[in-house]
């Protein structure tokens, strides 16, 4: 019986005007997306390649002396562009493309200067080409969250109310068929026909990218595309359930569409762009200007060490190390730690503000779907946090390498990280750990998991309510 209803509904939907319009719209937008992606991706890949080779060249240059590495650090650590950026551009234009592990920039008496540390700047400056009246990128997220959700409402607004108006629902129910079968059948047919629209858009998009040679994905990336498709279907299902709910509550098809559209405007368009901004406005980062040398000067660190006689004596290469050398080493280590901590604290304050905004935005399934797809595509904020984690792990690895390279040199006094206490021999470039930015499949799915569960929850609640109200409806 269920299959009969699904078949009947599917046939009706596929033959309607809206199906043709929807197909046209989706395929057109997917084409625009693919065309836009082809050039952009090539340019971005070339840029990343250049940056990566500049990074190795710099590192090789610094490897002529171990202490040069201690002072200058590994250099700019670049974020690897995601091959799936056509699914979700993730505001990558507004996110830093690198973190820098560079000189601290201060020097003091006895020719001692601060050792390297991580700094999180690198926000792209405003680009002349971005000066445009409105700028929204057409990616899968836009197509799924705006276009397909809208189509889902257009599909379902008259599903119950329309049949009630025409009296066909009575006819259907006069057969030996349970109400829940009718609702499930209608739901499945809607999901199938919208899924077909979505699928054809995706196929056209992927085909075009494949033919242009831009699409060289490995199995892992294909499975992420699969994940994105599933999230898209779940998101569509949420809106189909919403459509059924309103359609059962209202007796007139037109009224149902009007209410649905208002909900759509608020949920899809306004909440994701307003709520987060409002809520995050209440929670400002406490440090306004960022970590600057001023903080170090006033943090009392230097005074504390000066009181212990830091600047009375210079570090020396004597073995065993003199107290002055040890004190300088202690100071340099603590100063670097403190500097890194301040930079990190400032970054955390900034990130927290965005996290709060994102939590509030999750009231809207659109934001949820966006976050899930971005995590899977390896772009956007979540990916940036992963990148920062990679960078921090690498920083530890790099410091450990410096210490072990120093240990390997028998002529060194082994007092890291003061110049006089360390080896001044060249290190082999091959042995230096290189920064490798990568996204793991597991991490991507873990990042998307919460959002997928939330989306499922939305669907279950809406569909169950629709079910109950359909059961209780008088026809």
């Amino acid at each position, binding site marked *: 019986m269920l299959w009969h209803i699904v078949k009947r509904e599917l046939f009706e939907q596929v033959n309607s005007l809206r199906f043709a*319009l929807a197909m046209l719209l989706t395929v057109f937008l997917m084409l*625009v997306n693919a065309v836009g992606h082809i050039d952009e991706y090539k340019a971005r890949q070339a840029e990343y390649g250049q940056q990566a080779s500049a990074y190795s060249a710099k590192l090789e240059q610094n490897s002529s002396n171990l202490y040069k590495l201690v002072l200058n650090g590994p250099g700019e650590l670049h974020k690897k562009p995601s091959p799936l950026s056509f699914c979700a551009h993730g505001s990558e234009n507004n996110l830093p493309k690198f973190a820098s592990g560079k000189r601290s920039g201060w020097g003091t008496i006895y020719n001692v200067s601060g050792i390297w540390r991580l700094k999180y700047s690198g926000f792209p400056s*405003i680009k002349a080409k971005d000066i445009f009246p*409105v700028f929204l990128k057409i990616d899968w997220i836009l197509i799924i969250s705006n276009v397909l959700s809208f189509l889902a409402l257009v599909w379902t607004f008259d599903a119950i109310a329309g049949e009630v108006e025409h009296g066909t629902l009575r006819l259907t129910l006069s057969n030996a068929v349970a109400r829940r079968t009718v609702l499930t059948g209608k739901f499945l047919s809607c999901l199938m026909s919208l899924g077909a629209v979505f699928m054809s858009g995706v196929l056209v998009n992927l085909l075009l990218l494949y033919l242009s040679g831009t699409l060289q994905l490995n199995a892992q990336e294909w499975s992420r595309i699969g994940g994105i498709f599933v999230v898209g279907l779940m998101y569509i299902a949420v809106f189909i359930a919403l459509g059924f709910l309103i359609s059962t509550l209202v007796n007139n098809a*037109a009224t149902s569409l*009007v209410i649905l559209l208002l909900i759509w405007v608020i949920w899809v368009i306004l909440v994701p*762009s307003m709520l987060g901004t409002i809520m995050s406005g209440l929670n400002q980062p406490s440090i306004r200007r960022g970590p600057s040398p001023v903080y170090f000067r006033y943090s009392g660190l230097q005074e504390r060490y000066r009181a212990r006689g830091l600047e009375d004596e210079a570090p020396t290469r004597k073995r065993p190390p003199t107290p002055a050398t040890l004190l300088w080493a202690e100071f340099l280590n603590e100063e670097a730690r403190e500097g890194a901590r301040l930079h990190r604290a400032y970054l955390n304050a*900034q990130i927290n503000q965005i996290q709060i905004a994102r939590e509030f935005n999750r009231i809207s399934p659109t934001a949820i779907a966006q976050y899930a797809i971005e995590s899977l595509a390896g772009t956007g904020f979540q990916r940036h946090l992963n990148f920062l984690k990679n960078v921090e792990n690498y920083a530890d690895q790099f410091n450990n390498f410096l210490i072990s390279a120093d240990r390997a040199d028998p002529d060194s006094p082994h007092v890291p990280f003061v110049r006089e206490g360390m080896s001044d021999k060249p290190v082999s470039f091959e042995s230096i750990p290189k920064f490798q930015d990568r996204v793991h499949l597991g991490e991507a799915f873990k990042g998307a998991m919460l959002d997928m569960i939330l989306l499922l929850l939305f669907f279950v609640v809406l569909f169950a309510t629709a079910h109950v109200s359909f059961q209780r409806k008088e026809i």
Partner: protein
Amino acid sequence: MLWTLIQREILANLMTFRFPIAVIACVILGLTITAALTDNYERRLASYNEAFQTHQEKNFSAKTYSGLTLQLDRPPNPLSLFNQGLDKRAANSVRLRRDKVPSVWEDNYFSTGFDNPFRHLLASVDIVTVFQILLSLLALVFAYDAIAGERENGTLHLMLANPVGRGLIVLSKYLSAMICLMLPVLISFLLALMLQLQSPVIDYSTADFLRIGGILLTTIVYLSAFYLIGLLISCISRRTATSLISSMFIWVVLTFIYPNASLFMVNHFIETEEKIEQADRETSQIMEGFQREKAKLRDPFAPPFLLKGHWSGGSISKDVTHIEAASELEIPTVKAYYQELEPQRLRAVEAAWVVRKQAYSETFVHRSTAARNALRLSPAGLYYLATAAYAGTDLAAMEAFFKAVRQYRQTILDYFYDKKAFSSRQWFASDKGAVRWDDLSRFSYQALGDLTEDSSRASGELLRLLLLNLVLLIVTIVVFSRQEV
């Protein structure tokens, strides 16, 4: 007769559930967004004031003429609450040096508009964006059954049996729906304005109120355009359901898809890189030419040093604080060096600017014009462009700031020529007293420029929108008159 019809229609519109929904939606959304944006504006203003203070102290601290570099700030625009345009994104702080002509298209200016640069990730909307989406939807919702519904119910037959022209019926439907739709707009607009005026830092002048009036007028014309689109569809469709679905598709296309897709295409298909790269090559050639000329002169600050003493500064600025008595004799040589060098430098910079300006007008300016033209095909685009011009946040307004900065740079150069600064000792040395900058006029810039200029740009778009209204009204009347009921 018209009045009777209008009364009937108004009553019918007010009684539907759409009307209260429209009022509530407009008011709630208008107020929340205004509250958030006002808060944001206050913060931006505070950060501007802070930057302005710091720069004010630093700007004229140079002790020699050559040491003068200025940091000039652009204040945030309070009308960006209505349409933020480029106000938050365009550079709001410009470093002014004599060896570079600033332009809005350069990359290296920074924006102090946001404390947290990650906030660019959160989309931000303004009152116009909310209205652009919401009002067009409401207008279509009011219009879809205006004619199709009456035809379905058979009341249209009844009405036409009376001695009343078809044009009059369309007109009465249009006028009455507009009256009903204007109510929520006016209410939310006034409430939003009142909320803004509560803020201690927002203080609108008469000219600003005229601009706000212009935005309100554009809003109403935009609303009417969408109502007429809905009415036309309602006229053509046989059934209300068809009318509703086609209206909604047209709405999605006109407000979302077309503006985004057209900008995407314009951005993609108008090439800029090649021309900019060529301009870069030409500029660096010009500057290399200057460097060659410079190399022919004997640089007094390169070894072997002409002057013995202490100095600081970079390649284009020098500040000699102490000269040994023996070097005093060399001073005229140094003066002659700068007398020769600096005008040459300025000529080279000017020549490079001419090249870049040409390149910008062929690429970025060309592209933004194309984008503007593409947007004009959608009423939503016209609404955006007109309100951005009224609010003074469009590209032309941003360019006006850079134009003012360039003019001020010229003022400084003229001041140098006037004072014969290049051949003076104070060009490079402050040991005989620092330069006093008292007689150099200070830079000042108001966020809102000339009203007539902005409104003339806006009225072009407004006229297009009005024309669209007129065409739609006439077509609707003609279609309705020739239709069988």
